[in-house]
């Protein structure tokens, strides 16, 4: 099946008419980001990976979960239904698509966070396999591929002439989508561009070895930790751009008469994240906070949630102002 780039305009239009949101890679603030587009002309095709991950469409940076009105001693508390429109996520990279299973595993672990699941259920993922990449990419080191189909409802591969995509419908949702917008999809096949393959990480990475080393609490005392993580600023850019980071804060905003309860992204790299009211902070140095992030990715996620904590998108490598490269830490712990 073929989706020609010329027909993308019609697809966007029809999707919009159906009342759904169409998010795709587009330029904003000088970089290509996943954003809601109104016309196909806004869509960028020239990008390695969007600066933000598609996670914010399923797990927004900020959302109101309840509204409270207080009058004298009468409290009116109303839960706010999550705003979960039908959403088409177009041009998602396969690594980002694979991350949705990870987020889902956290948000459905025993207790179900419906503001996540509702949004995911109402989204359809059209991933585009990578024909280019950069030094930050390392999906192959975490057991994925630049054309991994995990998490994608449809996967698109750019044709050799660059004018179209070869489309593969992977899920029932994907097949439904093709049926619904059948006039933009054409029968046929074509040759596709070569898939990009990330470079090997210097020193080599062995995920099983990393898991094994992290499973032993003794590694906390390993002097390699301060050596590796000392330079971290604690800026949190890695966590905010990460497609699997799920930490959040719940806080009230407003005044004592009218207030909104918010659920906002938060980050384990921020210094007061785990600060107790008593002043005690279990993760009181940046080294401990960074170690926790690495533990989360390569020990907690696989062990506790049985999903991938890291999909190798490389955003944390690209955004880190001090170049604390997670792949170097992975190589160190593969020894």
């Amino acid at each position, binding site marked *: 099946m073929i989706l020609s780039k010329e027909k993308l305009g019609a697809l966007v239009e029809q999707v919009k008419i159906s009342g759904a949101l169409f998010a795709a890679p587009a330029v904003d*603030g000088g970089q290509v980001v996943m954003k809601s587009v109104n016309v196909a002309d806004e869509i960028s095709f020239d990008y390695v990976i969007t600066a933000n991950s598609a996670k914010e469409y399923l797990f927004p*940076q900020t959302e109101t979960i309840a509204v409270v009105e207080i009058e004298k001693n009468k409290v009116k508390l109303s839960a706010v239904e999550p705003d979960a429109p039908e959403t088409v996520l177009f041009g998602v990279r396969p690594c980002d698509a694979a991350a949705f299973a990870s987020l889902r595993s956290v948000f459905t672990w025993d207790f179900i966070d419906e503001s996540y699941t509702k949004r995911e259920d109402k989204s359809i993922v059209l991933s585009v396999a990578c024909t280019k990449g950069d*030094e930050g990419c390392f999906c192959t080191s975490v057991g994925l591929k630049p054309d991994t189909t995990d998490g994608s409802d449809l996967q698109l591969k750019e044709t050799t002439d660059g004018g179209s995509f070869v489309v593969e419908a992977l899920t029932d949702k994907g097949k439904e989508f093709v049926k619904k917008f059948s006039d933009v999809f054409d029968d046929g096949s074509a040759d596709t561009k070569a898939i990009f393959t990330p470079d090997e990480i210097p020193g080599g990475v062995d995920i099983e070895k990393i898991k094994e080393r992290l499973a032993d609490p003794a590694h906390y005392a390993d002097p390699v930790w301060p050596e590796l993580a000392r330079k971290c600023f604690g800026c*949190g850019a890695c966590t905010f751009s990460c497609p699997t980071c799920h930490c959040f804060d719940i806080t009230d905003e407003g005044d004592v008469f009218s207030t909104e309860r918010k659920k906002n992204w938060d*980050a384990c790299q921020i*210094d007061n994240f785990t600060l107790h009211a008593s002043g005690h902070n279990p993760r009181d140095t940046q080294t401990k906070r960074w170690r926790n992030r690495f533990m989360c990715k390569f020990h907690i996620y696989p062990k506790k949630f049985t999903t991938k904590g890291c999909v190798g998108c490389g955003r944390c490598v690209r955004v880190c102002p001090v170049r604390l490269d997670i792949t170097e830490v992975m190589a160190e712990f593969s020894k």
Partner: protein
Amino acid sequence: MEEQLRKEARRLLTEGEVAVVIGYGWNSRKTRVTPVFITNPDDADKLVFNALCVNNLSIYLTRKYKDIKALGKPAIVAKGCDIKNIVICVSEGQVARDNVYIIGMSCTGVVYKQELWQGELTDNIMPTKCHNCEVRNPHVTDIVIGDKVDFTPPEEPTGMVFDKIREFDRKTPKERWDFWIDHFNRCIKCYACRQACSLCYCERCITDKNQPQWIETSAHERGNLAWNLIRAQHLTGRCTECGECERACPANIPLNLVNSKQALIVKESFGYKSGFDMEEHPPMIVYKPEDKDDFIK
């Protein structure tokens, strides 16, 4: 130049004059530089200095970095622009001048972001600060590494930031407001700008103060505006325009624009340029009877 740097670092560590040399080293692929902390004289050869060395390492001298402090007296590899931050930290009582050994690097400019590096330093990949640099020969040092650089900054500041400022000054207040709202809307409240700034050394930032909650933590229009304005205000007259905040920003918000505009206003109003004099305090943190009051109408 690198050899000279390594020799000095080796000497400092061997003679015990310092316990750690904070400098730059290669990543494992040798494609990017990253901060390194050399404590063993045998590791001094890991130090490098080149046009990729954009990071302002002075951040590691601030008191948040307790584990670095614990190593002992540091020497720091610093470009002139980085030294400006050390000067402010000294003048504000954050760093004692005697407690840091400054290895000043003669500098011919660095890249704006390492990702832009194609093997050659060209004007268009240099940050605005390099085009107007007055401290290519570092001004406050314990030793200078490298040959004297012959460079006179232009009288009228040049570069992308100043071009934008001039363009901006012609805009209406409404246009300016829309411009900033549009940019601040992308803010994700990660506070990378704050964390990257060696002058944002407060151990408890105003954003962390919640009794009352001065700044809303949500990444919505109100919260983003409040944070970005307060960040800028707290740096008025102190910011040395090193550009680390903008470089660290994952949302590409043009923070240098607001920083440099403020620096221009401070220079015009108080004749003060931050980062040159360890004895003088930045104008916004002190009161002087002769301070201008012509803004009071």
